[in-house]
């Protein structure tokens, strides 16, 4: 994917403790501008080597500075932070739905699922063929991969949530839309999602309709990253028709699909 980088960090403590869905709070530069750290999901972990990988899109100044760091330089990071995904029960069938760079945290999850012998159907969407990330690596883990692109240059032509919907609802799972969940994958026991907000809202709508539990990983602007400043609020359902704000960095970034108030 153009402008997308992968960075491996030697951080044995983080590697040992990290769970899928957690993130690092990374100091991209060394000066007061930009001032704040940037949250980046843990993309993969090599516990033996004590290494953690992140995968990020150069979105602005912070990530651009990070991309300019040289091999061997020290990078300040806090983590692992956040709650992480809950792991499926033994033998459970799961689906993962990712939009663009949203695959970053899901890949770590898929790594861990493989360890526990769970296979997932992975729906990967991107703007165009060249932006589809980690397709090969996910297949290598033994997961089923279904692709979609906004421009139709690869796989399903359309939104990844449409692919997911089509796959899940196609007659006899034969694939009206040309894309189907592999045998035995529907209904998945749970669904994991990460990607743009609109995509996640749609995903939650779909699985709510289907009555399947799921979890989505959200983004919000962060200050502290450790639950202290209340910047990273996520509006969630609370009580009778009420709402409250939860901290993406502490109670999240992973939220149960039914809790989030989209809008």
């Amino acid at each position, binding site marked *: 994917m153009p402008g997308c980088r992968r960075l491996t960090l030697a951080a044995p403590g983080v590697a040992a403790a990290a769970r899928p869905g957690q993130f690092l709070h990374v*100091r991209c530069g060394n000066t*007061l*501008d*930009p*001032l*704040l*750290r940037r949250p980046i999901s843990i993309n993969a972990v090599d516990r033996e080597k004590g290494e953690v990988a992140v995968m990020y899109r150069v979105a602005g100044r912070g990530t651009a500075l990070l991309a300019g760091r040289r091999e061997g330089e020290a990078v*300040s990071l*806090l983590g692992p932070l956040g709650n992480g995904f809950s792991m499926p029960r033994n033998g459970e069938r799961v689906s993962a739905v990712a939009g663009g760079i949203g695959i970053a945290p899901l890949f770590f999850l898929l790594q861990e699922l493989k360890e526990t012998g769970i296979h997932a159907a992975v729906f990967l969407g991107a703007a165009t063929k060249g932006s589809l990330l980690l397709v090969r690596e996910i297949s290598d883990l033994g997961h089923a991969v279904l692709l979609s692109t906004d421009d139709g240059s690869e796989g399903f032509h359309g939104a990844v949530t449409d692919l997911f919907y089509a796959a899940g609802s196609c007659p006899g799972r034969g694939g009206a839309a040309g894309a189907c969940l592999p045998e035995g994958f529907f209904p998945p026991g749970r669904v994991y999602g990460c990607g743009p907000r609109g995509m996640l809202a749609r995903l939650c709508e779909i699985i709510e309709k289907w009555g399947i539990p799921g979890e989505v990983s959200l983004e*919000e*602007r*962060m*200050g*502290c*990253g*450790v*639950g*202290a*400043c*209340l*910047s*990273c*609020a*996520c*509006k969630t359902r609370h009580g009778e028709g009420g*709402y*409250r*704000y939860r901290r993406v960095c*502490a109670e999240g970034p992973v939220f149960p699909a039914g809790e989030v108030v989209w809008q």
Partner: protein
Amino acid sequence: MAVKVNLTVNVGGIQMKNPVTTASGTFGCGLEYAPFVDLNRLGAVVVKGVTLAPRAGNPVPRLAETPAGVLNSIGLQNPGVEKFIEEVLPGLAGYDLPVIVNIAGETVEEYALLAGRLDRVQAVAGIEVNISCPNVKKGGMQFGSDPAMAAEVTRAVRASTGKPVIVKLSPNVTSIVAVARKVAEAGADALSMINTLLGMAVDIRKRRPLLGNVTGGLSGPAVRPVAVRAVWEVYREVDLPIIGMGGITCAGDAIEFILAGATAVAVGTANFVNPRATVEIAEGIERYLEENGIRDINELVGAAHNE
């Protein structure tokens, strides 16, 4: 050889083992930072602002990064004073650490009720009266912008508690000295300054204000010169101990405030960048004293005023 230096200060009756505390709202209740720093090594902790009733806070985005600064519009999200006392405060019981509770009200009466309620809580070492929050519709900065209203809030709080009362001033005024003077007359034990500068940012793609709440409070290194000036001015005119804050990131910054007249300093936004900032600053101040042969931090307070 280095002399053994005294770092203890007394801020309006609150005895602190060193002059470094935390800026309200940037350090949670303290426990959020316990994985990074030994809380026992802080001079005190000032917790996130509490109100009488729980508050949900403002819509997102609540934070925007600006050059060397941060705009926030949290909107005083908090569980309300009762839940705070029952659920949050006990978590700090194990620490040897004065806990200062930051309070905000929509009316003078609310401030008095909050102070009165906290007065009965042993774990509370002092009360910081936030009359300078720019992120709430009612109360907040309104009180801090008018010397007479600031005094009224101070008097009401003073009458409701025997605990040390620290009044937190807003920099968004024509004369911070005028407000400080009235607050001192009204019975405050100490002043803290500065709260955030009123600011905003516009998202040029959406062509709308970036923050959910439109305006927000500017903090971080960007505002430090304004904060040092405020401390400098008030120190000359008002005879109360000052907790200085605004953009402190390292010991050198803290010493600027102390030289300008602050008895203690609070670290805010810098915690986000370096969660160990508070303790490193306390260590750095100690080193500065040692290196300069100053035996007592209190000798440094306001020393930049000496010609």
